[in-house]
């Protein structure tokens, strides 16, 4: 299995742990990930705030690289995933947009390179049986809140990831690993995403509501599939505790880190030492549970 892997800018900074865990898990499953040489930023939220054509051309440039490689694309960052899906959708739907993007890039891009989230590949392409065979450890009843956020599931017509109000793909992975996937209402709430620097007050309000609901639902940790969600819930947790008078202490881990742990990969290789809220209790639990 060979894919073009688009790490996204956060893989080089705030989400290095995500990058490490995706690479490790892929290696274990013999998924070959080839990074398009010289990949560039997808533009994320600032681009679609600023100029529609810019927000489509930036991801399209990377999809064009994948088209030349003749490979489907794997993404982990939910923002990159969303922007690439939107670019494909708009280019396929509107010939005028395709023409303009192609003129901008200097080459024609047809909008047909398939974009998958890494979690989709695990469940849909690798499959339950092969995944189960690769697990040497178990989550041993760990109560995990699966948190999807906005960009994977919305808009449904464009991303076609899962049910936009009650996605279950990550939950099924948790159950497969022997964890308890808790039923909670904040799966697709917003964490404040792109306001991480500009409107910290909004991030604190929204992320507090997510952490509060996870805690009230008895979660021992939150599993995420988006670098912005991870930063807002993990790095900001101290600020939220201070502002709201709480003491959450909830580890925020990438789903790939949990998968990696169950495959017996060392926590260091999965970048788990980079979490601000220590995931040590999870690591100890998994290590004991063979």
């Amino acid at each position: 299995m060979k894919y073009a892997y688009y790490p996204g800018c956060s893989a080089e900074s705030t989400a290095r742990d995500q990058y490490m865990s995706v690479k490790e898990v892929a290696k274990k499953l013999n998924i070959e990930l080839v990074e398009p040489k010289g990949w560039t930023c997808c533009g994320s939220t600032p681009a679609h705030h600023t100029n529609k054509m810019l927000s489509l051309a930036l991801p399209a440039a990377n999809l064009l690289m994948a088209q030349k490689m003749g490979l489907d694309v794997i993404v982990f960052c939910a923002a990159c995933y969303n922007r690439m899906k939107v670019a494909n959708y708009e280019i396929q739907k509107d010939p005028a947009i395709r023409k303009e993007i192609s003129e901008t890039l200097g080459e024609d891009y047809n909008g047909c390179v398939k974009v998958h989230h890494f979690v989709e590949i695990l469940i849909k392409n690798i499959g339950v049986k092969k995944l189960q065979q690769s697990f040497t450890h178990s989550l041993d009843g760990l109560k995990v809140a699966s948190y999807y956020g906005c960009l994977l599931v919305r808009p449904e017509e464009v991303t076609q990831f899962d049910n936009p109000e009650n996605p279950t793909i990550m939950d099924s992975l948790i159950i497969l690993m022997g964890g308890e996937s808790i039923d909670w209402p904040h799966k697709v709430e917003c964490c404040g995403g792109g306001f991480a620097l500009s409107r910290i007050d909004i991030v604190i309000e929204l992320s507090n509501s997510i952490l509060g609901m996870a805690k009230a639902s008895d979660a021992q940790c939150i599993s995420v599939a988006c670098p912005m969600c991870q930063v807002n819930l993990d790095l900001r947790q101290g600020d939220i505790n201070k502002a709201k008078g709480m003491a959450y202490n909830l580890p925020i881990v990438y789903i790939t880190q949990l998968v990696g742990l169950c495959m017996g990969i060392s926590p260091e290789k999965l970048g788990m030492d980079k979490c601000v809220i220590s995931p040590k209790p999870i690591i100890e639990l998994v290590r004991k549970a063979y």
Partner: protein
Amino acid sequence: MQVVNLISGINISSCLQCKKCSNGCVVSSLTKVRPSEIIRRLQLGAGDELLNSDLVWMCASCETCFARCPMNINMAAVMDALRIIAVKKNASKQKGNVALFNKSFLGTVKMFGRTYDLGMIAAYKMGTASYFQDTDKFPMMLKKGKISLLPSFQADKKYIRRIFKKKDIKQDRQ
């Protein structure tokens, strides 16, 4: 409304004012203006005063409004259109100056082909005079490798140069 229709490609007149967007909006408990109100005002021929609504720059682009709209109105695209017009018309700056954040972010993309967090943060902090905000986190992030001192030089800027050049020309024309 015509300008918003044109930029967003969304036909606002089909809104029924059911207010599902406002009820689902994650920031509407914090804002004075709610999404359904933006649409209603546009229907009634609102002018530039709408650009000063707090929701314009407090909208988190989470798209819950769009996901739940029974008329399939892409409210997120409407909000993008309002932000684009607000920047062009130099509407009053709002708390947090999200427009400056966007500019700082895209500035590093234009320069390096990928985002450069430190450069972006520096440009944004200079513009907002929020120098000491979060400085306590910097040593820890550096130690954990969650922020880099130097930008990435791996990006192939062939497309980036073309995209930003083309975009600048287009914006001038608008």
